[in-house]
């Protein structure tokens, strides 16, 4: 018997799985529990074949690995490897987009184009590239080469994208710590090298290494990805969309886009638009592309595509029997999805040669043939639909509406209507007056281990009540959209008076005729870059370090290694980063001490582990209060 109960929509899908006798992640989780304590504490080392070695957390048994490694060494090595998993994912994502951009400029990827010329110029100027009297293509090529340099250079210069996007004060801070990074791939290599058997045994040195990887993630991963995606597909603007699995349409060909990279999802969306007649010819009312996970965030922010499911719901969505094809690229794709798909007519289509799932259909998606491949994929979905026709589907009722697309540019546009010369000033004034007590970025994933506690929703509500503005990205954005935090009604319903007044004024300025929502959807997980840019701009405008701002980050239901590396980047920037469930550092007294206390003196950052939503909220609010006090406001 399953022990956890989730929100109504999620639960209805779990219930359906039970009725149909189909296994889900929840069955698997409960069979896995109780989970291995050494694994949870990070104190199991498998780096070499004299091991695996485990350290007894209660001091009764073995205290060192065969090689003599202490629990601190073991935990910090493991942490660094986790960071590499995250940073490699983001760097890979960014590099893929950037190389496609380059191919496009060279005429080898005809399916893509420059959509946001203004952003291109902004990036080019920021990189010190000459823009006068040159063609867009020439400028763009130089921009691409600058990005490529961040993966190839062998001198000790720092990442171009760090120079471009990191606050000057932060760079100085990192220089002092000796953690400036120059080439994403070299850093990843070095991190793997230093953590293999018989290398770095100094836990503090390893933790500094973790900060380096955090910086790789932030600048060579997130920022590069966001910038090129904006240039190619457009910088998001505020728009209204629908969310929840209820966005599936019983009589349409439903294509669920799942994964991360808009290179694929943009083309599928475009082709779906062109092939709707073909779908109609097969008896469908058209093609309905819906978004899952982060590629869903990308699509919704640029094209109003409905947000169907966060990561925990990704396999559950298939239980509706209404998804004709789930098209995936990279990251966060549960292998279990294919097993559920097999119970229906649903096709899981993998597209990345290094991401395959046994039983799934694989159609390699190369940017050179983006249009042809996208067409092939959409046709597969239409074909699957013909096999669904006439069968019952179960689409949970209940959709929410959400305003999404809060890129920094979109936010500044709204603010400019209030103060065209100094757009950040209205925000700063309201922070000073306390109308905006602070801001918290909620990011990360929905944890199947915590989702039933409503961890994210409870914390968000607590923030809003205390006049703390919430920005969000990634799957947490899906949670917030489904919870109804992203529509204008939410402002009235959840916010304290100060925040309500600010959001009403902003809504008026934006010509919305209603307040702005209290939770701002700033994008996918790579778009945590946008949050950092906003914080950087605010700090610069105030002449302070990012770590001085009355803000915090929270990954209340962390799942992926990517959340660890993003979180570490934010620690390097100097933020308080709240995390739940427990990161796998708890087995090491040194790691716990450094990350939750010592780091404060180095970068200003602090990791904060708390699983109770109420206590976690109080901890964050307390931090914001301290920061305000230090700023004298």
């Amino acid at each position, binding site marked *: 018997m399953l022990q956890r109960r989730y929100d109504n929509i999620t639960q209805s899908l779990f219930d359906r799985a039970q009725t149909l006798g189909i296994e889900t992640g929840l069955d698997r989780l409960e069979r896995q529990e*109780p989970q*291995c*304590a*050494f694994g*949870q*504490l990070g104190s199991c080392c498998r780096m070499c074949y004299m091991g695996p070695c*485990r350290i*007894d*957390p*209660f*001091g*009764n*048994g073995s205290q060192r690995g065969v090689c003599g490694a202490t629990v601190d060494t073991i935990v910090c090595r493991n942490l660094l490897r986790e960071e590499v998993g995250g940073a490699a994912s983001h760097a890979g994502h960014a590099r893929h987009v950037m190389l496609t951009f380059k191919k496009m400029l060279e005429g080898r990827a005809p399916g893509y184009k420059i959509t946001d010329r203004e952003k291109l110029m902004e990036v080019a100027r920021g990189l010190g590239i000459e823009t006068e009297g040159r063609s867009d293509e020439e400028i763009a090529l130089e921009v691409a080469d600058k990005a490529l340099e961040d993966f190839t250079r062998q001198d000790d210069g720092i990442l171009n994208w760090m120079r471009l996007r990191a606050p000057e004060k932060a760079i100085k801070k990192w220089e002092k710590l000796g953690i400036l990074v120059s080439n994403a791939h070299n850093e990843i290599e070095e991190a793997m090298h230093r953590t293999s058997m018989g290398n770095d045994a100094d836990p503090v040195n390893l933790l500094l290494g973790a900060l380096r990887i955090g910086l790789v993630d932030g600048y060579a991963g997130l920022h590069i990805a966001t910038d090129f995606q904006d240039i190619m597909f457009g910088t998001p603007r505020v728009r209204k969309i629908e969310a929840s699995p209820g966005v599936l349409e019983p009589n349409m060909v439903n294509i669920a886009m799942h994964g991360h990279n808009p290179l694929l999802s943009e083309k599928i969306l475009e082709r779906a638009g062109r092939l709707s007649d073909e779908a109609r010819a097969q008896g469908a009312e058209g093609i309905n592309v819906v978004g899952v996970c982060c590629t869903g965030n990308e699509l919704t922010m640029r094209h109003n595509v409905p947000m169907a499911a966060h990561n925990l719901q990704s396999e559950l969505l298939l239980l509706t029997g209404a998804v004709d094809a789930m098209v995936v690229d990279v990251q966060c794709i549960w292998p279990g999805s294919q097993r559920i798909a097999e119970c229906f007519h649903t096709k899981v289509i993998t597209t990345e040669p290094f991401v395959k799932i046994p039983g799934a259909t694989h159609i390699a998606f190369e940017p050179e043939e983006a249009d042809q491949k996208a067409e092939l994929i959409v046709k597969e979905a239409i074909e699957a639909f013909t096999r669904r026709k006439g069968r019952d589907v179960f689409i949970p009722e209940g959709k929410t509406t959400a305003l999404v697309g809060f890129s920094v540019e979109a936010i500044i546009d709204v603010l400019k209507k209030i103060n065209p010369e100094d757009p950040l000033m209205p925000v700063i004034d309201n922070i000073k007056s306390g109308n905006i007590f602070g801001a918290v970025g909620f990011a990360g994933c929905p944890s199947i281990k915590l989702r039933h506690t409503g961890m994210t929703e409870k914390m968000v509500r607590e923030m809003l009540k205390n006049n703390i503005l919430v920005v969000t990205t990634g799957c947490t954005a899906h949670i917030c959209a489904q919870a109804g935090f992203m529509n204008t009604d939410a402002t009235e319903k959840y916010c304290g008076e100060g925040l309500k007044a600010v959001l009403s004024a902003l809504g008026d300025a934006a010509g919305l005729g209603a307040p702005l929502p209290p939770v701002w959807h700033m994008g996918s997980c790579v778009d945590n870059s946008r949050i950092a840019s906003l914080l950087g701009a605010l700090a610069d405008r105030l002449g302070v370090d990012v770590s001085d701002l009355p803000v915090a980050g929270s990954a209340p239901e962390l799942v992926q290694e990517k959340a660890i590396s993003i979180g570490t980047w934010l620690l390097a920037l100097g933020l308080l980063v709240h995390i739940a469930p*427990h990161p796998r550092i*708890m*087995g090491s007294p040194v790691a716990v001490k450094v990350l939750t206390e010592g780091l404060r003196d180095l970068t200003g950052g602090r990791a904060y582990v708390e699983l109770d939503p109420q206590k976690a909220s109080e901890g964050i609010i307390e931090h914001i209060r301290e920061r305000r006090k230090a700023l004298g406001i």
Partner: protein
Amino acid sequence: MKRVFLDLSRCTGCRSCEIACAVQHSKSQNLFEAIFETPPPRKRTYVEAIEGIPYPARCMHCAEAPCVEICPVGAMYREDQFETVRVNKDRCMGCLMCAMVCPNGVIGFDPDRKVAIKCGLCRSRLKEGMVPACVESCPTEALRFGEFEELERQRRLQSARVVIAALRTAEQASLPIYKENTGGE
């Protein structure tokens, strides 16, 4: 009478039972808090290995327990409800005579309270209808908990299954099988 049964062929030596046991005997009963407690919680189950083959050792709650017999102050006693062997920590003076006579080597010493410590079969958990912590934590079901009679019956059925399968195979292959002459021929 309920007992923990061990299937040695399934034990991988992962030590999950040891940790679960220590957490069960912590103040917080939560791993992430237990690791910060002083004094540290102590386990009552011990995974040893001979020639690379793991063996999780715990108190067997002997029906005629030498530790109970020998205890000079009557601190070791049999408890009736779950038929376990327990230590009365208020009486125990830490002489460890019990440990010296225990053939299983599963009596430990708590240097903070200066008393003998041993498995109590998680009586508090049993009262709530749960299985002992070590059993719950075992990922391979090498440790199982149930009525002694039922567990034994499962074993008998298991061995019966093997014998009967062999018999069938032999019959199908028309091998000469010895049968008692039942008369009439």
